[in-house]
């Protein structure tokens, strides 16, 4: 008789609500990793999430924690307000690239510069997902989107913004890395990074952000499998994976 090994269990940090994400989208993976980390660190009870505007606007439906829903791009400011008056709680934002890197660039830069003890999960899928696949600041040069129909022309539409590299220059940042969700190995590495980003906050070691390269099969017009290949072949060369800032105190964190 074959023995059965339990290899997957729905994290208790999740509610029973099925997600609205498209098939093949890696938002679901990112949500799982966050939920698993909240559970493993035993911090579900004291966590307050801040949802963005974008595809993950309904994130508050899926996590079994207190949640607020911010105006477009303002999640880091709202999170600042919560964390400053509730410093013993764990506060995280979950934001896409339209939210964080476009309309909310001011809020994220200054939250990072102030060294707010927040954890930011940043989903980079190179487009505005919710509104139907428009160009984002992270859209690759030449990439066709519904608002760069001839392909992003850097002469007139500018260059992609490398958020993790940019924020890593700020002294208030404790932990700032980029990971990818395109294969199991990278998903494991992403989870470890998310864990460290929450540990950073739990220890009061400053601002922590994990940028996650993500897929958007629907708006990219690709199968889920081809989307994963696109991340590997096109996104990673433009957005190299790596640790851009890990402060000395955080390097010592053992998990």
């Amino acid at each position: 008789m074959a023995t059965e090994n339990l290899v997957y269990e729905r994290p208790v940090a999740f509610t029973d609500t099925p997600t609205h994400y498209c098939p093949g989208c890696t938002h679901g993976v990112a949500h799982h990793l966050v939920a698993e980390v909240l559970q493993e660190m035993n911090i579900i009870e004291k966590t307050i999430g801040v949802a963005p505007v974008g595809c993950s606007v309904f994130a508050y439906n899926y996590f079994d924690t207190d949640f607020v829903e911010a105006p477009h791009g303002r999640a880091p400011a709202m999170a600042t307000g919560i964390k400053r008056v509730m410093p013993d709680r764990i506060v995280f934002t979950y934001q896409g690239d339209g939210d964080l890197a476009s309309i909310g660039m001011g809020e994220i830069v200054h939250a990072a510069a102030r060294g707010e003890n927040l954890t930011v999960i940043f989903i980079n899928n190179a487009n505005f997902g919710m509104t139907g696949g428009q160009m984002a600041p992270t859209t690759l040069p030449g990439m066709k989107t519904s608002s760069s129909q001839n392909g992003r022309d850097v002469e007139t539409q500018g260059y992609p913004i490398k958020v993790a590299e940019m924020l890593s220059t700020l002294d208030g940042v404790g932990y700032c890395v980029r990971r990818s969700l395109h294969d199991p190995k990278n998903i494991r590495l992403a989870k470890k990074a998310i864990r460290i980003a929450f540990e950073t906050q739990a220890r009061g070691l400053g601002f922590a952000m994990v940028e996650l390269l993500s897929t958007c099969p629907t708006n990219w017009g690709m199968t889920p499998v081809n989307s994963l290949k696109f991340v590997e072949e096109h996104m990673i060369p433009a957005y190299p994976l790596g640790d851009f800032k890990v402060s000395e105190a955080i390097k010592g964190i053992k998990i």
Partner: protein
Amino acid sequence: MAKELWKGNEAIAEAAVRAGLEAYFGYPITPQTEVLEYLSRRMPELGRTFVQAESELGAINMVYGAACTGVRVMSSSSSPGMSLMMEGISYIAGTEVPAVLVNVMRGGPGLGNIAPAQGDYNQAVHGGGHGDYQPIVLAPASVQEAIDLIALSFDLAEKYRAICMLILDGCVGQMMEPAEMPEMKPIQRGNWDWATDGKMGNRKRRVLSSIYLDPIEEEKMNLRLLNRWRTIEENEVRYKEYFLDDAEIVIVGFGTAGRVALSAVREARAAGIKVGLLRPITVSPFPHKIIEQLAGRVNAFLVTEMNSGQMLEDVRLAVKGRVPVEFYGRMGGVVPFPDEILSEIHRMTKSKLSADIHPRDAWLDRMAHI
């Protein structure tokens, strides 16, 4: 407590602290900056939260976040900064969390200037942000009144889970006057059943948002806000009456314009003219009923404002054309002198007034000399 000499902006800051302010988020802008400056020292001294935000957008969203946890939170700004806050104000209204805001108004539109004005009446009272909502708006005319109203603001905001905004012109913010501070109140966090302050093991999770994706649900929310507003209108209208008992002409003015008008009223009374003053304290909810009652027994109204006649329209709605309503305003940061209002009173006693011409048009013609 004894009277001390207080500058309006600093008095507001200290009065807020004494009312239990736990967190302040702001951004420098003249003529409001002393609120921010004062609290940058005072709040840390008491172990409370102070953040100078990167912008008014940042500040209002920090207020929004802190408000969701149920603490007493405030921001302050001046006209252009308030415009930037309108997005967050709409969200706060849509999420039904209490917050106190102060607008020390200056000349506009645009960058305008830093002189005292009342040009943001419509933005504050009739909603500058998107969607259907109404904030409670209080208009102090002195440093003492600003102190008293800031404490009231926190109570009203919490009672109705609404925004309570103080609008004062630069005069009240910058002026120094003898005023009495209330005693320091200890911080008491309300035990709210809506605050997202972490489950902490003893309750179900809570979500605060302004999203109602189903239009029927959004409409229910709109109705809830409107019904709450009706309660606010029934219970929270505040105004001050001066010499109204036998008045034949009633001046209506808020804030500094109302205070300047009072000087003119006193002079006119000394000259035997039966004129009185109604000074709205709550410009929202607006004191419609008292104006409606007065319209049944007085000969005429004169609305004085430091804008182009924004409250004028609310007065006209209450008067319903029963008696003439005249208007006198100064704009762009110009503060009227009592003499100017006195000469308007004299004009009204001497000339035949008509309800046919719009008072703003008539006033514009009289302003042709400028």
